[in-house]
Structure formats: structure tokens, C-alpha cells
């Protein structure tokens, strides 16, 4: 039986943030995640590191938290953050009166807003609509959700943190109103086991209500679904927010060579209701055209959807009416000691949420070590010597990219693989510049069980061709290394391509349709990974 002082439920930003914080303070902790790390909400959003401008008017507290955390994450998570800055742009369709209110609200909570002329804004961002009325600069940034989660785990592991993926909670065990452990199920094998612990922290986001229910406790989390579009272009180099009260399709976020537009908002019954549809995509395009008139001429990569965990003490509050702030619920008040849920909040404030929860847990455990998560970098920078070495092995642009992705320690391991076998230097995924060695390293991690898990760690398969070429290579490569995790390789092919298909299906027109004919031609037409192979033909 596994043992830990604390078990953290949920491998999103909040969960890994708590794991890191606990471990840095010397608390023995395990994190369990029902799927893969960052599988849920932490990878299903626009990747905006908020300045707080979006919330300042309606939720001053959230705005203030954002600008403070934004400043911290730029520093400790600089390999996950691209400091793009952001614009708030009011279009001809938006209320002029709101502008004044917004400037005032930002000033109140310490978010700098610098007005610039429309001409200057369009000089900096030439694709912006000519109909823009006014523009302000704010310290927004782009943040890679996958990488942020993964680097938190890397940091936690240095302090002894353990992670179990594809593990779901099936029971919370208690004795005399005190948590003593939990029953978990391995979702891949179905195997049930126990983890003994003194404390459980639920950071399950949209699933927090379901977890609390296992202990007979009610937590009102309303999953609110948001659909987003990823474009295969950097439409703007800055984050572009629409200057109006928060609504659908308001935010464009550049990430490397792509741009994400989001989001819609709709209450849903299930936290895993994440299949986007064509109607939502068309709606987003219609709205987005107010900021970028030629939006429809940009090629889309995929659409995706996630659920926000909106918390409300009042179960009737929904959608954008519910607070984006977060709450720590100590279930001792519900009669069960050693069980805490953290609900609500947003990616930008994950570290702060983790700090608050960890303070509470440490108080119970009588641990006096203060929080240091705001002071220490998530991963170490690669030394100049290591970078010089990396440049010998990686393709030109790939060395910096890989160093940023992997951190110093990971980079060293990948270079070792390349030294041992020069052919591992080849790009397995040309779209995202991912080498064979990196894929092998990610595949060998104890949290990898499928090609999609490798994708989330490396970005392979996330570029223009959406897996048309690298699916075959990644299956071949992991299988060649004896890492197919006991699965039939056809299962690996199908699982990965189905994951890509989920985001392609709602945008199946134009060049995307073309790409799909190619992908199906390869995997279905040529490789027949789908066809029933009854070779007698009966």
C-alpha cells in the first residue's frame, strides 16, 4: 500500500502547484490524476496570463490577484511565458462609456493601462481592424499550460514529490471524522488499491463536486464550457482583448507561431463535456471579425473546448455571473477533518491558490516552513556550457526551444540520448521541431501511457499537419524502444489520431478538409489500421 502525508487530487495547474508547494515545505505528498497531467482545464483554455484587466471592473479582487501573480509567474516560470504584452481594443460595436469605467477600475487595483493611438496600435499590429476606436497597452502575457504543469511536476519531483496518472479516486476513507486514506482505481488496468494518508486536497476543478460527493459533502461547482479556436498563424504578436464587458470571443492569444481565439461560455452538466461543434466555431469567427476583419482568411488548426470550474455558494449562479475568484473549503466544517477542496479561480492565480491551500494544510500538520514557490524558478536555466553542447545536436532553432521545454535536467538527458545514437537527432515532428530523442525521453517518463501523453509533454503532433506524419513515427519509435505500454500499436495509432480528430471535426472545411483527406489516406487507405483483417474474406 502506498503511503503519503498528503494526497492531492487533480493534475491541473492548481494540483501540481499544491504538490510543488507541499514538497518544497518538506511534506510527503502524492498527486493523483484521473487522466494525464494537464489533460483537463489547464490545457483547454486560451493560454492567457492575465494582467487582470479582463476582471478589473466586475471583480476587483480577481483583478488584483491576477496582476500580482502575473508578475511572479513571469519570473519563476519564464520558460513557460512569452512576454507579449496585451492590447485592450474597443471596436466600433462597443460601448464608449465602459472604457472610462475600465481605465478607472484597472488603476484602482494596480494594473497599468497605457493609452496609445489607433495608428500606433495598427503600426504594431497591422492585422487589427481599421474600425478600432481606441487601444490601451496592458501587461498581459502568453503562457503554455502544458509546460507550466509539467515544469511544476519537475520541480516537485526534485523535492520528493510523486505523481500517479490515470488514477481515479473511488472512495475516501475516514475514521472518527478524520481522513485516513483513499481507494483509487488505475483507469488503464482497472486495478483498485489504497493510499494511506492524513490529508486529502481536492484540486479537481470541474470535477471537485464529484470528489466531494464521495465523502458525502456538497460542493457547488458548475462546469461552464468554453470553446476556442487555434489558428495556424500568428495573427498578432500581442494579446488582443476586446474592450467591453467580458463576453464570448473576446480574446486572441499568440503562442509561438499560432493564435488562440476564445471563448464561448455555456453551462453544461458534465465536466468532461469537451467536444466542440461547428456552430460554436462559426459564432466565434463572427465575433472575432470585429477585431480582425480578415479573420476567415486565416487557416485554422483545430477547435477545442474545456470546462471552467465555476464555484458558487449559491447553486443558481451560472456562467459569467459566477465569480472567477477562488475559495478554499475546509471540510472540517462539514464534519470531516483532513479534507480540503479548492474551487473556482483561474490558471493565472494557480500559484496563489496553491499557497493558500498549502498554508492551511501545513497549519494542520504543524509544519512551519514558509512558502517559497514565488521565489524559486520552476526549472533551472541550462548553463552556457550545456547550451553550447545542445547546439551541436539540435537543429538550429531547436536548441533554445528544447532548453525552454525541458529545463536543464531534461535537456541533459535528451542530449545523452542524441550522443548515444546520432539518428535520434532527427525531427520526428517537423511542425513543432520535436526530435526523436525528446519523444523517447517523454515516452519513458512514468506518467506516459499513450502517444497523447507524449504529445502533451513535447508538443509533437500539435502543428500544421496535426499528426499526419509524426503519428506513424512516434508509434514506431516508442514501440522500437519497447515502450508501447503493453498496448497493441493499432490502439496507439487510433487513440492519437482520434484525439486530433476531435478538434478537427468542427472545423472541417477549407485546407483542414484537404489535410484530413491526406491523413485518412495514409492511416486508413494505405496502412489500414482500421480495416478488419479477415484475410480469408469471409
Amino acid at each position, binding site marked *: 500500500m502506498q503511503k503519503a502525508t498528503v494526497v492531492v487530487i487533480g493534475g491541473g495547474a492548481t494540483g501540481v502547484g499544491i504538490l510543488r508547494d507541499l514538497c518544497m515545505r518538506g511534506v510527503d505528498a502524492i498527486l493523483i490524476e484521473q487522466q494525464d497531467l494537464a489533460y483537463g482545464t489547464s490545457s483547454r483554455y486560451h493560454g492567457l496570463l492575465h494582467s487582470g484587466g479582463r476582471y478589473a471592473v466586475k471583480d476587483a479582487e480577481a483583478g488584483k490577484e491576477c496582476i500580482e501573480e502575473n508578475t511572479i509567474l513571469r519570473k519563476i516560470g519564464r520558460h513557460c511565458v512569452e512576454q507579449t504584452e496585451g492590447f485592450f481594443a474597443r471596436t466600433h460595436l462597443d460601448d464608449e462609456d465602459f472604457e472610462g469605467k475600465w481605465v478607472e477600475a484597472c488603476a484602482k487595483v494596480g494594473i497599468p493601462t497605457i493609452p496609445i493611438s489607433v495608428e500606433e496600435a495598427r503600426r504594431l499590429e497591422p492585422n487589427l481592424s481599421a474600425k478600432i476606436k481606441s487601444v490601451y497597452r496592458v501587461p498581459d502575457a502568453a503562457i503554455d499550460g502544458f509546460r507550466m504543469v509539467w515544469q511544476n511536476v519537475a520541480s516537485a519531483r526534485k523535492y520528493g514529490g510523486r505523481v500517479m496518472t490515470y488514477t481515479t479516486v473511488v472512495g475516501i476513507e475516514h475514521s472518527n471524522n478524520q481522513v485516513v486514506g483513499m481507494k483509487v482505481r488505475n483507469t488503464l488496468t482497472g486495478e483498485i488499491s489504497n493510499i494511506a494518508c492524513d490529508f486529502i486536497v481536492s484540486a479537481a476543478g470541474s470535477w471537485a463536486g464529484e470528489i466531494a460527493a464521495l465523502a458525502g459533502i456538497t460542493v457547488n461547482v458548475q462546469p461552464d464550457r468554453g470553446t476556442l479556436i487555434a489558428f495556424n498563424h500568428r495573427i498578432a504578436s500581442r494579446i488582443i482583448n476586446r474592450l467591453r464587458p467580458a463576453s464570448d470571443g473576446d480574446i486572441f492569444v499568440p503562442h509561438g507561431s499560432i493564435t488562440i481565439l476564445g471563448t464561448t461560455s455555456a453551462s453544461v452538466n458534465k465536466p468532461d463535456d469537451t467536444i466542440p461543434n461547428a456552430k460554436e466555431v462559426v459564432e466565434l469567427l463572427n465575433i472575432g471579425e470585429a477585431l480582425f476583419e480578415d479573420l476567415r482568411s486565416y487557416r485554422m488548426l483545430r477547435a477545442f473546448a474545456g470546462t471552467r470550474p465555476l464555484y458558487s455558494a449559491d447553486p443558481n449562479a451560472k456562467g459569467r455571473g459566477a465569480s472567477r475568484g477562488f475559495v478554499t473549503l475546509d471540510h472540517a466544517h462539514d464534519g470531516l477533518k483532513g479534507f480540503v477542496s479548492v474551487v473556482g479561480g483561474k490558471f493565472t492565480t494557480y500559484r496563489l491558490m496553491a499557497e493558500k491551500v498549502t498554508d492551511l494544510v501545513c497549519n494542520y500538520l504543524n509544519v512551519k516552513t514558509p512558502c517559497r514557490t514565488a521565489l524559486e524558478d520552476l526549472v533551472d536555466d541550462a548553463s552556457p556550457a550545456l547550451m553550447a553542447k545542445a547546439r551541436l545536436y539540435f537543429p538550429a532553432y531547436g536548441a533554445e526551444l528544447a532548453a525552454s521545454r525541458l529545463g536543464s535536467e531534461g535537456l541533459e538527458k535528451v542530449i545523452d540520448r542524441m550522443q548515444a545514437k546520432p539518428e535520434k537527432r532527427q525531427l520526428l515532428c517537423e511542425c513543432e521541431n520535436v526530435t526523436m530523442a525528446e519523444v523517447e525521453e517523454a515516452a519513458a517518463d512514468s506518467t506516459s501511457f499513450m502517444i497523447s501523453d507524449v504529445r502533451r509533454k513535447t508538443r509533437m503532433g500539435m502543428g500544421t499537419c496535426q499528426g499526419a*506524419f509524426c503519428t506513424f513515427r512516434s508509434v514506431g519509435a516508442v514501440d522500437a524502444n519497447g515502450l508501447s505500454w503493453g498496448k497493441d500499436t493499432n490502439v496507439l495509432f487510433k487513440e492519437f489520431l482520434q484525439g486530433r480528430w476531435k478538434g478537427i471535426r468542427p472545423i472541417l472545411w477549407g485546407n483542414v478538409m484537404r489535410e484530413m483527406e491526406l491523413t485518412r*489516406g495514409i492511416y486508413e*487507405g494505405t*496502412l489500414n489500421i482500421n480495416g478488419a*483483417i*479477415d*484475410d480469408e*474474406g469471409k
Partner: protein
Amino acid sequence: MMRENDIIVIGGGLAGLTAAAVAAKRGKKVMVLSLGAGTLTIGGGIVDVIGYLEGNKPVATPSAGLLQLPAEHPYKKIGRPAIEDAIKFFKEICEEEGYPYMGNLDTMQWVPTAAGTIKPTCLIPKTMNTEELQKANKVIVLGFESLKDFYPQLITKNFKKISRFKDKEYETVMIDPNLAEGRDVTALDVARWLDTEEGISECITKMRKVIQPGSVVIIPPVLGTRPNYRIADRLEQALQCHFIETASVPPSITGLRLRTMMVSYLKKIGVRIVEQATVAKSIVEADKCVAVVTEGIDRERTYYAKSFILANGGFYGGGLLAEPGKVIEPIFNLPVEAPEDHEMWANYSLFSNEAQPFAKLGLEVDEKMRPLDADGKVILNNVFVAGRNLRGYDYSFEKSGNGVAIASGYQAAMSV
């Protein structure tokens, strides 16, 4: 002034090239307007006719499959006799060009793929013949160092799960082609290496060290880029082994050979091929097309002909354009019926026992391959449609791509 053609074929894939060959053999003056290499260099080395029916049911032979297709399927319009003639015609071209294909409608050929699966097909180059493989007790799968598109163990491991191949002994071996260290290597690089005298000699030397005479050897499709069996014969003689190429991911060397062969044949019989020709629009008078207009970086060009064969490859080739809830045929503005609700276009599963609805979208035609309107009336009397633009079939699901291309290209050219 452009010379007057009898027939202009729009599209340089297998459907267009076949149509051009048939028309030219019938004494017509033919021109092909081709945008690029078509899908031939992506996966086109083998001719699938029909492998699966709805429900993912495998058919015993292509012949048996043809009988079971629904009325909307292009094969049903073309009819069995024309399909047979088309295949005969294609095989004659292959013979004449010195690159004969094997197979017929009454035999299903199961060829090995690079994923370690097998796929049902109809016509294959002889380097994909599996007779020796079925007889062999021991099979060697040979890979090339640095070739990131071929993984020998994927084949050996999965072949052990296929009933007809499971009771054999498998061994994987690697050869180093010594192509620039660290550089990305494709099957095309290896095939070009074997095209050279130094390359093939070096390869033979290296193979001798790892394979015994009398072996059956599965390899990626690298046996030369030219449409002949010179490289295969040379290796087989030198090593006294039998080599079998797999169906593989792009770039498809077998497809490249097929295209090179077709183009060579067309040139011999006087067909003019215009490359990089993007046909933008047509000039139509009453129920006839008079000319098509290409656009280039320099200027527009008008090409006149008595008849036109539209074979520009459906959604992939640009013959059909998809928009939300709508499909456009851009050259003649021919009607395409498609569900307005875009959600109806595709299944939630990418690979399942169902064909994809979007893959079946396309142009409705009559028996002569002439485009029809919603009332079933012929729209343009001298325009014929072939290949992927046709509605009613999902080539990748049912494994019928090149078969429909050849049969419909043949039928279109015979109808002119």
C-alpha cells in the same frame, strides 16, 4: 493562339492520366492541365478496387465486392464490363512500359504495410507479391538506419497477430545507408541511393553480412525510383533472396514510379502535359464548355477543346472546396449536394465501421460520367467527371481509390 485540342483533361492524378491515355489511344488530340504530381506520390503505388463494404465488412474478392455496392457508388454507374476493360488497359500500359503489375478482379491481394498490418488490394507491382512470404518459414524485416519512416519491429510484432503470418519466425536487421549523419532521411533518399551503381553495390555488400541466401526479406519501398524491376532483380540475383516492398507513408516511391510510367507512356502517344496549370474558370456557351482558363503568376491563358474531363482530385486536389455547410466546384460551378448542418458531415469517430459522410460528397454523374443537376438532367454535354470529384464513395474507408480513378477515367474518355 492555342492549338485546338479534342480533349482537355483537368488534373494530373491517376484518373486524369488514365483518361488522357485512353482518349489518345482513341486517336484524340489530348492535353493534360496538371497542378502537380497529384496524389500519386502520396500513396498511389497500388490499385485498390474494393476491399470493404459499409459496416467494415471485408469482401472476398474485388469481383464479389463490386456486386454488393449500393446504386450511388461510381462503380455501379461505370458497370462491370468497363471496369474490366479499364483494368486490362492499365495493365497493358504497365507491360508496354516494362513495369508489369500483377492481379485481377477475382483475387484479393493482401499486401504488408509499414504499420505491420495487411491491406486488401487488387493490382500491385511484382515487388509487393506475397506468395513467397506465405510459403516462407523464416522472414527477415530489413530497415535502414536513419530512415524515420520505417520501423522493422512494428512489422514483425504485428505480423505475429495476423492468422496467415503468425506461425513464422521473424528477424529484424538494419543496414546503414551512410546518408549524411544526422540528416533526415526519407525512403526517396534510400531509393535514389539504390538507383546509383555505387549505392546498390554498397547495399549488396552490407546486405550479404546480415541476410542469408534463400531468405524472404520485407523492406520499405526503396527498390529504385524508376518504373522497372532492375533494382529488385539485381538484388534478388546477387543475394538469392526474395524482396517484398511494403505499402508505406509518403513520400510513396511506388506511387512515384507509377506516375513516372504514366507520364512516359503519355508522352510516347503524343499527349501534351502542362504542369503547374491552375484552372480557375471555364467559358460556357449554352450546354457546352468552350474553353477553360488557367491563372498563373504572369497571366491568364485560355485553353480551347471540344470536350473536357474534370479529374482534379476532390477536396484534396482542389476540385471541390468545402465551406461550412456547403461544397463548391470552382471551375464549372457544378452543384454538390451537402448537408447544411455541418455537424452532419462527419462521424465522431475518425476510424470506425462507418464511412465518413464528407468523404462521399461530390458530383453526381450519369453512366457516361457527365455531371447532373438535382433533377437528373445533364448540365454540360461535353464535360465528363473522373476520380475523386465523384460522389458516393469513401476511398480510404473502402479501399477503392485508384480503382475508381482508373475505371472512371477510362469511362469518361470512352464517353467523349
